[in-house]
């Protein structure tokens, strides 16, 4: 009985610790918040691939458009080309990790694995698609 209690205590301790150890640091309470804070810089407030970095002129800044058009997250056609794993890998390792443009940086040390999974679900909501 004592042994079982000890094991349970150790398990509880490990679960608590694991909640605090991640690759990134969670600042947001939802995937929407993370999307708004990080992704919209390039992908736009509505996820259409038209963020300020992509089209500086759209915010009144006279600089050329980004050399690569960020993916339109609301397009089922574009988003269906990607598997869930592709999307997770692109967020975590950047565009280069999925043979796409390296202008998409890696967020694997910024977001936790759980946050990346939540972002994936958010992206699937935006495109209203399931992927290939």
């Amino acid at each position: 009985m004592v042994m079982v209690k000890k094991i349970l205590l150790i398990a509880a301790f490990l679960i608590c610790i694991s909640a605090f150890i991640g690759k990134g640091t969670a600042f947001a309470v939802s995937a929407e918040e993370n999307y708004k804070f990080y992704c919209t810089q390039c992908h736009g407030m509505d996820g259409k691939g038209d963020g300020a970095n992509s089209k500086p002129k759209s915010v009144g800044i006279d600089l050329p458009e980004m050399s690569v058009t960020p993916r339109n997250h609301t397009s089922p056609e574009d988003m269906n080309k990607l598997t869930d794993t592709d999307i997770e890998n692109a967020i975590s390792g950047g565009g280069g990790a999925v043979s796409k443009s390296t202008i998409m940086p890696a967020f694997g040390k910024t977001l936790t694995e759980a946050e990346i999974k939540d972002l994936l679900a958010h992206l699937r909501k935006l495109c209203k698609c399931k992927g290939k």
Partner: protein
Amino acid sequence: MSVRKMHCLMGVFVAAVILAGLTANSSYAGSDEGKNIVNAKNCGTCHQLQGPATEKTFEEQLKKKGPELWYSGSKFKKEWLEGWLANPTNIRLLKYNSITEKNSEKHPVLSKKEADEVAEYLMTLTAKEVTASGITEAVTPQGKNLFIKRYGCVGCHSIKAGAKKVGGVSGPDLSEAGKRLKGDWVYAYLKEPKVFKPVKRMPVFVGIINDNEMKILAGFVAGQK
């Protein structure tokens, strides 16, 4: 040596020590005045003047109205600060903390004397994490490759491309960063981002960009003049 000569030599020595002390103090001349100006103008309303960074949520970061200055002596080059405070221009092309609005803010303008004194004070605000790390401040092919191709920094930061400027707008404009930033600070910022800005839109690159590449990138950024 006669007693008189000894006294004379000692007198000269004491005078030299006093003079040296006065000269040393004079190198900080203006720092107190600068602090008084910063307080009188309420710069602390928009700028954090005392560390450490404590933000833990997006909300806490987004509440801020201007860049943190508690490590400005480690970050900025003094000559640039003196010039900028008397003739400020917008460094981030988008408004502070915004990703949809162009930066049309007008920072208060200081007189030349005020600018020099405030710069003197700001240079006393330092972070122990920024140390001499042997950064070569120069635009190198390796730095350019890392900045543009390998890590896509250009997606958010603008730099010079010949006579033109290219790049994104959500990060600070780096096209003349070398006039403004110390390479050692850029390196420290990449290496220990949480010390300087724990919550920020720029991804954490620790564990992604290796130490040597961080140094090359810091040199490339500080080489933009």
